[in-house]
Structure formats: C-alpha cells, structure tokens
C-alpha cells in the first residue's frame, strides 16, 4: 500500500532555534500517528508544515505524490476542502462563531459541492447527533456552547466531508478531564469507523496511547524515536523518551 503523505528532509529555523531538523515521516491510509513532545519541541510546527500552512526552508511534503508546497495556494485550499481536515486546539479557530451550529457543518458540505438545502440540513443534524450534540440546538450559535461542545462541533464540521487525512493539534488541550475522555472516545470511534488517516499532535501521552497506532517523539526539532505506540511507550530507547514516559502520573 502506498503512503498517503510522505515528508523528507524538512528543515525550519526560527532565528537560532531549530524547529525542524531533518524530519521525515510517512502516513498511510487509515493510520493514526501521534506526534508527542514538550512545548517548543517543534511538533505543532511540523503539523503546520505538513498541512501546507507554513513552508519549510528545505525538504518536501508529498500528498499522493504531489508536492504540497509547490502546488500553489488555490490547489492547497482545494485539498483542505476535499481531502483534508484540520482540528484546531482552540475550537474558535476552526468554527465560525456567528454561524449556527448546523450552518458550521453545512457550510463545509456546500464548500465540497453539496447544493440541496434539505439534504445538507439532514446530514448536518445527523453529524450533530454523532458528536453527541442535541440536533434541537442546530440553530444555536456556537458562542453559547461549552468548550467541549464547541470542540465536538469542530470535529463534526471537519469530518462531515469525509476527509482522507485529518490533522489534529492538541484537540483535547484546555478541556476538563471528564470532557477530554468523552472527546477521545468519540475521536477514537469515528476514526475507526471512517478509516481516517490522522496526524495528531499532543503532549498527552495517555491520549496518544489510546488513539495512535504509531508514535513519533520530538525534541528540539528532531524526531528522536518512533515506532509502534505501545513499544515506544513500554520500551522507550531514547533518554528523552524514557524521561517523558517516566514523568507521566499513573491515576
């Protein structure tokens, strides 16, 4: 099976700081890959470079063989509408707060070509239900929703067009623990059901274990260790991974 996305030789510096130092990775259809590491390790930068939101200084990102940074803005935007999804840490960055909940979901469908109002509304309602939002709240503004609800709405908005590859940047960051568990379970179920490929950036090791098939550990812009999630976490080889794993509190 060929890779959906391949990146190699990625380099990016912010002044004296190396944000990406010769980073390479592959992601295959249906594969969930977690990128873990502390703040400043370069993991969010990597996600943004892979999603075409920020160009690298060197290296290539290929999506189904096409160079993401050479294809031009319009082609990238088209990919974002058709093949990709991006779930931001702060749902306010991924939602339109003055458009109704149903509108937020329907808008993505329309951008992807749906035209029939009734069908769009029906599908939006279905998706609200899937992310456990009462469809009766379809016409409410997301401004009125709790943080956890907004995040679930962002996930519905992202997944409604059935993307092949979804980028997630700390999707559970900033939420209460009980809300996190619900969200993680929801993401886990949807990803398995839809067979999505997901690149998820998180500093939450437990979340990564729950969701990811494979894991990359980043430090100072380098991937210091990668492999099967349970092997990286249970038999870490690199000193930094050993530190990261031993620092997690067991509940």
């Amino acid at each position, binding site marked *: 099976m060929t890779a959906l996305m391949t990146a190699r030789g990625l380099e990016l510096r912010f002044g004296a700081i190396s944000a990406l130092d010769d980073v390479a990775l592959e992601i295959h259809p249906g594969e969930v890959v977690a990128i873990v590491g502390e703040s400043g390790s370069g993991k969010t930068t990597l996600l943004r470079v892979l999603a075409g939101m920020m160009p690298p200084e060197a290296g290539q990102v290929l999506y189904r063989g096409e160079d993401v940074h050479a294809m031009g803005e319009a082609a990238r935007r088209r990919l974002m509408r058709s093949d990709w999804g991006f779930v931001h840490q702060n749902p306010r960055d991924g939602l339109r707060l003055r458009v109704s909940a149903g509108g937020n979901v329907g808008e993505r469908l329309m951008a992807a070509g749906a035209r029939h109002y009734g069908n769009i509304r029906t599908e939006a309602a279905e998706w609200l239900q899937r992310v456990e939002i009462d469809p009766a709240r379809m016409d409410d503004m997301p401004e009125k929703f709790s943080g956890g609800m907004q995040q679930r709405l962002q996930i519905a908005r992202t997944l409604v067009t059935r993307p092949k590859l979804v980028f997630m940047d700390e999707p559970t960051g900033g939420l209460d623990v009980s809300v996190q568990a*619900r969200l*993680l*379970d929801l993401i886990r179920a949807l990803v398995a059901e839809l067979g999505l490929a997901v690149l998820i950036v998180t500093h939450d090791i437990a979340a990564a274990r729950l969701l990811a098939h494979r894991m990359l550990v980043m430090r100072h812009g380098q991937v210091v260790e990668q*492999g099967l999630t349970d*092997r990286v976490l*249970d*038999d870490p080889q*690199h000193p930094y991974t*050993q530190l990261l794993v*031993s620092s997690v509190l067991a509940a």
Partner: protein
Amino acid sequence: MMPAIRTENLGKTFTLHLQGGIRIPVLRSVELGVAPGECVALSGPSGAGKSTLMRCLYGNYGAGTGHVWVRHAGREVDITSADAREVRAVRRDTLGYVSQFLRVIPRVPTVQIVAEPLMARGLARDAALAHAAALLARLNLPAALHGLPPATFSGGEQQRVNLARGFAPGYPVLLLDEPTASLDAANREVVVALIAEAKRAGTAIIGIFHDTEVRDRVADRLFEVAPLQDAA
C-alpha cells in the same frame, strides 16, 4: 511440524538512561519454537524474565538481538524488525496476547471491548457482539455488566473481560500471562476448557501459569527461563 511462532537467538537488555545508563540484561540467546496445537508453559523463578519474553514475542518490547518469527498469511514475519503497520496486521489476524491487567478505555462498554478485535477482522457488528456476549457469559460475567465500561469491575471480572477479548478471535498464536491469577475455581475450569479447545483448533499457546495445577493440565511441555546471573 512448522512452528507457528519461534525465536532465534533472542536477547533483551534494558538500558536505563535515567539511572546513569545502567544496563540490565534479561534474556540471552532464547531459542523457543511452538507448533500449532501445542501449549508451552514458561517456567522459572519470578524475575527471571518470563513476562519480558512474552512482551518481546508480542512486539511490545523491542529485541536487543535476534528475531521473533510468526507465521502470518502464509509466511514468517519477524516481529522485531517488521514495521509498525505489519505488526498491527499480525496482531489483528494472527497473534493474540492476554496481559495480566486490562487497559480500560473510558466509556467503552465491556461487550464492545471484547467484540472490537472481531470487528477489526471484518466480522459484522451484530455477529461480533453476539459472539462477545456468549463468551462473557461462559466466563460467568453477568449480562447486566456487559453494557458497562469495566473501569469499576473487580480484578477478577476485569481479567475475565481480558480473557474473553483474547480468546474471542481464535488467533493462531496466543500468549497468556497469568490467565487464572485472580479467578475462582469455577472460572479457572472455564479457562482450562478454553485453552483445551483452542489447542484442538490448532492454536499455538505460550503461557505463564503461577498455578501449577492448571499449568500441568494444559501444558504439553515446559520452557525454562533462567535468570541470567545464575545461567552465567
């Protein structure tokens, strides 16, 4: 007969970077092969490395030296060097592992935890859930508990959920780490029967059994895992 799983010069040493890089050798030159339908019990004192060997066989631990060959889809795959996607495929179709403790997933009901590996192999949802419920019932887990997440279950109940999840798919190779440790006599009998049935169906089983009576009833032979200091 061609082994379903075999090791070749398998060695494992842990390097603890946070403790000044101290190296702890646990396994050296392990040569173990298990045929379809055979049950091999790992023996040796506690701390000898039996659980470490099991984890290496499952690919949960990497190997320092050597290989772990598993017969999968008509060929042998080396778990120690296969890429993550191939290890996942081997675990989905061929290699099962019942650990001592259930890793609980928040909010997921018991019956679904057991049915998941069946659905991953393509069984329809309803059939998978029915099979899971039947196996849980056989392990004396009341139907009233099937719809609840096992987070609040007792140790013995969680172990039975774990056992049901491990036995349900009928893996060609099954690793059992203390499968009867916290079970009462009646459930121990169920596990002994499940192991016997799996063997008849051609499953290669490697187990760690604290309970020597259970061990002697299910194992065809013992495989000695000696502490390295003594072996040296």
